Each structure stands twice: as C-alpha cells, then as structure tokens.
C-alpha cells in the first residue's frame, strides 16, 4: 500500500523539520513523565529498601499490594483519579483535573508500585556486606543506604528506566485526567490516539517513532551501562 510509505515519509519529515506542534507535544510528555518519575524515585526507593531490610508486621501484605497495584490498568488509575479530582469529587476544590499536574499525579501513582517492587528486588539481591561494611566503618544510616544503592545501581537504573517507559507510554490515565488539551495536556500517546481517530496518521506515526527511538536509546544506554558494570566487577 503506497500510503503506508507515504505516511512514514511524512512522519519523518515532520520530525526532522522541527514541526512546532509536534515538538510541543513531545515536550509535554517528557516534562510530565520526568517530573512524575523524579517525584516517585525517592519515596519508592526508600519503601523498596524498607521492604527488603526491615521485617515489620504487614510487610508481606504491603508487598502483595505492590504487586497487585502493578497489574492495575492505567485507565482504572485514571478513573479513580478522575472521580477524586472532578468538581463533584472530594478533591474537586484543588481544580487539578485536566491540567499537567493531574497527569503528573496519575503517572506518579502508576510508576510508584513498579519502582517499589523493582527496587525491592534490587535491594534484596544486594550484597549485604556493602551495608554492613559501611556501618562497621562508622557511616551514618543515610550513607550506608547510599553505599547499598551504589552496589545495586544497575538494577536501580533498570528499575527507573522501566518505570519511565511505563509512564511515558501509557495513554489511559493521561487521556482521562489530562484531557488531551492542545499545548497543555496533549502528550505523545494521547496525541497518537487522537490523530488515529482523525484519520491523520502521519503525526501519529511520527510520535510513535519518537517513542520507539526513546525506547531504543534507553535500552542501548542500559546495555552500555551494564557492559561497563561487568567490566568493572571482573
């Protein structure tokens, strides 16, 4: 089908020519997802660490809950958030619905369980001696944690990348609480959904390419980091 190649050519041209509308959308996506990830990393890592090192009552329950939350579809998170933030909802006075902040909150909630679960596994697989040695050498708890995080840094990077990939590629929640408003809350994925609906495939394909390239860059980057890690631990 000729139109397939035509669409691809048009998509690449849009990207290369620096089409403003297109890059605004990409900007919104990155701003929202990066902010959500940055906000989530610290609490999630701490929770993941606590789950791995601290046998407290309810720990098992919290772990199961984390795994369950990971499987919750993004639209469900979106729906719950929508109901909370709606003018009729309990948090309606915050007037957050259909803003980037609402999208950030949604993506924060989406990546938190994933980050907790993966950082928990990372810490669980860590060499305990790292923490113990730091402690024996008089480091304060924060510094011990830092040493431990350095020890499992590759697993943590992988965890952050997976979380970022999940939220930048999700459409359900972003559409619901963001509202796909041009120049405000239109992200890569909601734009693709819209362009397909309009029958305008070129922009959709261009945005899809961005996600594809992003995934590739992240994975290649991860591979390089891992390679370096192997070299260092030989």
């Amino acid at each position, binding site marked *: 089908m000729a139109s397939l190649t035509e669409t691809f050519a048009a998509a690449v041209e849009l990207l290369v020519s620096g089409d403003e509308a297109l890059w605004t959308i990409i900007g919104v996506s990155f701003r929202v997802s990066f902010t959500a990830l940055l906000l989530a990393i610290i609490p999630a890592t701490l929770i993941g660490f606590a789950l791995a090192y601290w046998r407290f009552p309810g720990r098992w329950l919290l772990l199961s809950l984390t795994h369950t939350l990971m499987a919750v579809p993004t639209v469900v998170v979106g729906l719950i958030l929508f109901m909370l933030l709606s003018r009729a909802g309990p948090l309606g006075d915050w007037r957050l619905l259909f803003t980037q902040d609402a999208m950030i909150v949604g993506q924060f909630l989406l990546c938190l369980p994933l980050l907790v679960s993966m950082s928990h596994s990372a810490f669980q697989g860590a060499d305990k001696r790292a923490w113990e040695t730091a402690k024996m050498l008089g480091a304060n708890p924060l510094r011990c944690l830092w040493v431990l995080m350095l020890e499992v840094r590759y697993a943590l990077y992988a965890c952050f990348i997976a979380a970022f990939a999940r939220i930048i590629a999700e459409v359900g929640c972003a559409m619901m609480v963001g*509202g796909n*408003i041009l120049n405000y809350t239109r992200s890569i994925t909601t734009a693709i959904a*819209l362009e397909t*609906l*309009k*029958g305008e495939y070129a922009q959709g394909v261009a945005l899809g390419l961005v996600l594809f390239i992003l995934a590739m860059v992240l994975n290649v980057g991860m591979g390089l980091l891992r390679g370096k890690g192997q070299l260092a631990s030989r």
Partner: protein
Amino acid sequence: MSTTKKSTLKTFIRSAALAALAATVSIQSYAEDLGIVRLATTTSTYNSGLLDYLLPEFEKANGATIQVIAVGTGKALRMGRDGDVDLVMTHAPKAEAKFVNEGHGVQPRGIMYNDFVLVGPKNDPAGVKSANSIKEALAKVSATQSLFISRGDDSGTHKKELGLWKQAGTKLPFEGYREVGQGMGKVLQISSELQAYTLTDRGTWLAYKTKVDLEIASEGDKGLFNPYQVILVNPAKYDGLNTKGAQALSDWLVSEETQKRISDFRLHGERLFIANAK
C-alpha cells in the same frame, strides 16, 4: 389416514425438521442477498441512539447485518476513501463535497438534520445569552477571552465550529481557546470541569445535560443547523464492497416510512432529528 400416536410423533418431528431447514435456508438466502453492510458514522450520531432505533428493522426485513463503526467524521471519510466500509453517514458538508468530488463516494443523499447549541457556565461570564445570533455569541466569547473548549478532532462538530468562528470573524486560537481532541461527551465533561463554553450537537447535549454543570447559552440560529448525508463508497474504486447492501440501506433511509420514523425519534422526550430527504 391411519394415525397412531407413534406416527403422529414421527410426522411432527419430520415437519419440525423441515420447518427448521426452511428457516435456515431462508436466513441464508437473505444473508446472501445483502450480507454484511459496513457503515462508518460519527460518534455523535451513534451515541444519540438513532441507529439502534432504526437499523434492527432494516436488518430483520432484509436479513442483513449492519456493522456500525463509530468514529470522528475525518476518520469515517478516511475509511470510506480506503474502502474499509461500504457507506458513510456524516454531517460535514464541505468534507463530504470534497469526498464526492474526489471520486471516493457516490450518490450523496441528505437524510435529516439536527442542530448545534452553544453551552456554557450557568453564570455566563461572557454574557452570551443576550446575543441575538450565534455569530454575536461567539464574538462575545472571544472578546472576553473566556475559556472555550474545542473538539479539535476534525469531527463534523469541529468543522462546524471552525466555520462558525470564521463567520464570527475570530482569529484562532485566542487566549482561552483549548483544543482537546476528544469525543463530544468528554468535551462536555471537560467544559464543565473548567467552566468553559463549547459547541455541541443537541443529541449529546441532551444525553449529558444532567451530568454536567452547564446550560444552553445560544441556540436556534440557522447557522447552527447540522445536515446529515449518507454516501456510498465508490464501487468503481474497490472490489469486494457490498454496494448492493449499501444501496439498499441508503434507499431505505430516504424512504417515506423511515423518514417518518426518524422524525418520531425522541431522546429524553425531545425530538432530535428532522428528516428532510427529498
């Protein structure tokens, strides 16, 4: 005829089997007649419930199955252009004219119209309610830099809205103009949340008006009328189209009886469409 209980039973079974066979054959023969007809239409048409009200009768009478694909006008026409459907039912006169002129569709027929309304916050910050025409109403919205939510999805409603802005002499986008690229229902929700104005078809408005915190700000202007057309996808362009079925459906839609049924259709007790096939 010597009738024992046994033979009566036998006869009964035999006749029942024959009847069942006949029924199967008849359904098959009908299905062979019209088969599956694929109709692309707009979400607003579909959401009004009109098709669910009309089409079962056609399907029953003709043994056809109609697969309705509800998308935006742009996508509906695109599907027609790509030969993915047999006919389209849309409400965007300019795009439809282009569709026909470019040879993608044939036999455009007007079947009915409904109208659009401008809805907005109950406190009417732009003072639209005092306007005498839709042109004036929209000019007030843009002059006061009020929030206005646009469908922004190339749908019939979106195209209508763009046409109206042009008539009102407003240059888009103005401060407060937001394109959301979503369906009408979602746009009404967003407008309600952000307390903004928006242009909606009356059907969706009737379905949503109890769920949103908005009310009609302007209606009744001739410029707000919304004509629907049904167009067959050009059979010369693609093999394998069910043009026979599409033709039958098109004919049926403009028939006197169906036209009357369209005008009788009520949503929330209000008449939604005015049949106007010639």
